[in-house]
C-alpha cells in the first residue's frame, strides 16, 4: 500500500513528461509552427524566405528564437531519407571477359540525414548533420560509410550588423545552387566535384569542408556574400599554419522585379583557390609500405575554380519557373597533373529549369556539360574525362505540414563520361518516397 502511494506521484510525473514529450517539436517548422513550404520552394530547395531565415542563423526575429524562449520539451532534431527502387544501367564496365553492360535494380535507401540544428542563444546557431552508414540498406551498389556531413557553430550579427556573421566548423560552401538542398536524388552538380584527369588536387567546392566562413547579407538577403577559409578535404596536411588551405568566395544579388513575366532576377560571381601539397615525407613501418607523415607535406600548388551564375524567376516568386545558368571554369597547376607540361584548364556549366506550379508539384530538368579546354600536355586527348549529364525529375509532395513532409519522387538521369575511344554511360532511374520528420 505504501509502495502504491509512492508510485502515484511517480506515475503522475511520467504522465506529465509523456504529455510534454508529445508536444516536443523537433526541427525548424515544429519550432516556428510555420509550414515547410514557407521556407522551401520545393522541399528541400530554399526560397527567399528560407534563405533569409538561414542567413539570420535560424531566427525569425520575434524575440522567440533563443532556446530559453522555447518550450523545454523542444528538441531541434529531424531526419530525412528516401526509400524506393533504383534502376542503374552502365555501359562499358570492365570485366575479365571484356567490356560489358551491367544493369541492377534494387530496393533500398538513398541515404539518411540525421539533422540537429537550431539556436544555442539569441545570436548563436548550430548545425550537426550525421549520415550514418547504410551497410546493406542502401541501393546495394556498395556499402556506404557514415559521415559527419556538417558540424558548425554560427555567431550572428557581430558588431550589431547583419553583414558580419561567422560559422566555425564543417560547413557547406556557398554555391550558386546549394547541392545539399538539391531536389534531384540520382545526380548532384557534377561541376562542383570535377577534376582534370590524373589531378592530385582534392578540393571540391561541392563537399562540406572544415574551416571558417565569414558571411553577410542585407536585411532581406537580397544581397549576400560569403568567404570561407578551409582545410581542403582529403589533402595531406602540409607544414603550414593552415594546412592544405583553400579559400572560397561567393557574391550574390537579387533584384525583385515583380513583373507578370519576370518576377525576380538573381546573379552572382564565385571563385576559389586551393593550395594542394605535391610532396610529403613518409615513414615506412617494418614490413609495411611508406605512409605520408602528417604535417610534412610541401610544395603547395594551386587549383582554381571560378564562374558566374544567373537565375531568372519567371511568372511568380510564389509559383515560379526558375531558369538557372551557371558557367564554371577551372584550372590546375601543372605540378598537380601527372605528365603535364603546363597548367591545365576546363570549362563547364549547367542549365536548370525548376517549375513549381503549386506547393505540392515540382518539375525539374537539368543539363550539365564539362569540357577539358587544355589537358596540360601535348598529345593528350582533349576529350578524356569530359562529362555530359542530363537529369529530369517529377516530385509530388502529398504530405506537407509543419511536422512532416512526404513526396513521391520519380527521376531519370544519364551521365556520359568520355574516355580514350570509350563512351561509358550511366543511366539511373529512381522511384521513391522522400520523407522528412
Amino acid at each position, binding site marked *: 500500500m505504501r509502495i502504491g502511494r509512492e508510485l502515484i506521484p511517480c506515475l503522475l510525473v511520467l504522465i506529465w513528461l509523456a504529455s510534454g514529450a508529445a508536444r516536443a517539436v523537433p526541427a525548424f517548422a515544429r519550432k516556428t509552427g*510555420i509550414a515547410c513550404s514557407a521556407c522551401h520552394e520545393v522541399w528541400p530547395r530554399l526560397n527567399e524566405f528560407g534563405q533569409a531565415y538561414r542567413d539570420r542563423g535560424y531566427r525569425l526575429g520575434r*524575440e522567440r528564437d533563443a532556446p530559453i524562449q522555447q518550450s523545454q520539451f523542444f528538441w531541434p532534431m529531424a531526419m530525412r531519407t528516401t526509400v524506393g527502387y533504383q534502376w542503374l544501367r552502365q555501359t562499358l564496365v570492365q570485366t575479365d571477359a571484356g567490356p560489358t553492360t551491367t544493369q541492377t535494380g534494387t530496393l533500398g535507401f538513398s541515404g539518411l540525414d540525421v539533422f540537429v540544428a537550431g539556436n544555442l542563444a539569441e545570436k548563436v546557431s548550430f548545425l550537426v548533420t550525421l549520415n550514418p552508414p547504410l551497410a546493406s540498406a542502401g541501393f546495394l551498389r556498395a556499402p556506404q560509410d557514415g559521415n559527419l556531413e556538417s558540424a558548425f557553430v554560427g555567431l550572428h550579427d557581430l558588431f550589431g550588423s547583419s553583414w558580419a556573421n561567422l560559422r566555425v566548423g564543417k560547413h557547406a560552401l556557398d554555391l550558386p545552387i546549394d547541392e545539399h538542398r538539391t531536389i534531384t536524388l540520382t545526380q548532384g552538380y557534377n561541376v562542383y566535384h570535377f577534376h582534370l584527369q590524373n589531378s592530385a588536387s582534392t578540393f571540391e567546392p561541392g563537399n562540406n569542408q572544415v574551416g571558417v566562413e565569414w558571411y553577410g547579407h542585407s536585411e532581406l538577403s537580397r544581397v549576400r556574400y560569403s568567404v570561407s577559409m578551409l582545410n581542403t578535404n582529403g589533402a595531406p596536411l602540409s607544414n603550414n599554419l593552415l594546412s592544405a588551405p583553400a579559400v572560397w568566395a561567393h557574391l550574390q544579388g537579387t533584384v525583385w522585379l515583380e513583373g507578370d513575366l519576370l518576377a525576380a532576377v538573381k546573379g552572382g560571381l564565385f571563385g576559389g583557390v586551393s593550395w594542394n601539397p605535391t610532396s610529403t615525407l613518409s615513414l615506412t613501418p617494418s614490413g609495411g609500405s611508406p605512409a605520408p607523415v602528417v604535417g610534412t607535406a610541401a610544395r603547395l600548388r594551386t587549383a582554381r575554380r571560378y564562374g558566374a551564375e544567373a537565375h531568372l524567376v519567371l511568372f511568380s516568386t510564389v509559383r515560379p519557373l526558375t531558369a538557372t545558368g551557371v558557367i564554371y571554369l577551372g584550372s590546375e597547376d601543372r605540378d598537380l597533373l601527372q605528365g603535364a607540361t603546363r597548367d591545365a584548364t576546363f570549362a563547364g556549366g549547367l542549365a536548370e529549369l525548376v517549375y513549381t506550379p503549386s506547393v505540392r508539384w515540382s518539375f525539374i530538368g537539368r543539363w550539365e556539360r564539362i569540357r577539358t579546354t587544355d589537358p596540360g600536355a601535348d598529345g593528350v586527348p582533349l576529350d578524356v574525362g569530359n562529362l555530359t549529364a542530363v537529369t529530369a525529375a517529377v516530385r509530388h509532395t502529398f504530405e506537407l505540414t509543419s511536422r512532416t513532409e512526404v513526396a513521391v519522387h520519380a527521376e531519370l538521369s544519364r551521365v556520359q563520361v568520355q574516355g580514350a575511344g570509350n563512351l561509358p554511360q550511366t543511366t539511373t532511374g529512381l522511384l521513391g518516397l522522400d520523407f522528412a520528420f
Partner: protein
Amino acid sequence: MRLLLAAALALVSLGAFAQDQPPAAAARPPTAPDPERALRGKAVFERFCISCHGQNGDSRGYSAQWLDPAPRDFTRGIFKWRSTPSGTLPTDADLVRTVSRGLSHTNMPSWAPIGPRAVRDVVEYVKTFSPRWQTESPGEPIKIPPEPPDGEASRRRGAELFTQMGCFNCHGEKGKGDGPAMPTLLDDWGHKIVPYDFTGGTTLKCGDKPEDIYRVFMTGLTGSPMPSYDGQLSPEDAWHLVHFLQTLRSQ
C-alpha cells in the same frame, strides 16, 4: 397607343435589365478585395500562412493549437493593429504593415522577404475571408499630432495618467503585465489574453516608434480588452503617457 405600348415595354425591359445588375456591385466599397490579386494571394496564403491561419482563414491551421497567442481569425474581420478608429476595418496599408513587419513575441514573422507584391496579394486574399470587406470601408486613419518634447514633467504627467486611466489594472503598477485584472482577461474569441509587459523584450508588437504607441492608445486593439482612449485622453496627455511608457521599457 403603339407608342405608349412600346414605351411601356422599353421601361419594363430597362427595369428588368436594372434588376439583372448585381446590387452589391454598386455598393461595393473601393477597398473590397480585388479578385485578380486575391487569386494570386490565395497561392501566397497556401504556401506561407495556412499552417497557422487555416485553409478558411479561421485560425484553425494545423499548427494553431500549439501557438500562443492564437493566430488571427480573419472570418470576423476584427483586427488589432490598425490606424483606424476602434471597431472599424483596417486600411490595406495597415494589413500590409502587419504582414511585412510581423509581430514580435508571437509566431507571426516578418514576411518582407517574400516581396511586396506577394504581401499585397495575400492582403487581398485575407480580405475575402470576412463579409465585412464587401459592405464596409475601412475607417479614416486617425491623425497623430507632432510629438511634444519629452521631459521629466511630461513623464510625471504620464505616470499620473497611467494610474488615473486605470492602465495598472491590466498592465500592473510597474508595467509588467501583471495587474490585478490580468487573470480574468479574454479576447473576443474567448482566448486568455496576457497584457503587454512593457519591461520585457526590446521590441513592441505595435511598432517601436513613439507614434506606434500613441496610435494604440487612440485606436485600441479591437478584439482584445485594450480599449480606445480616443475622446477620453487628449492628444497632449496621450503623448505624456507615451513618454512614461518608454521609461518602463528602458528599466
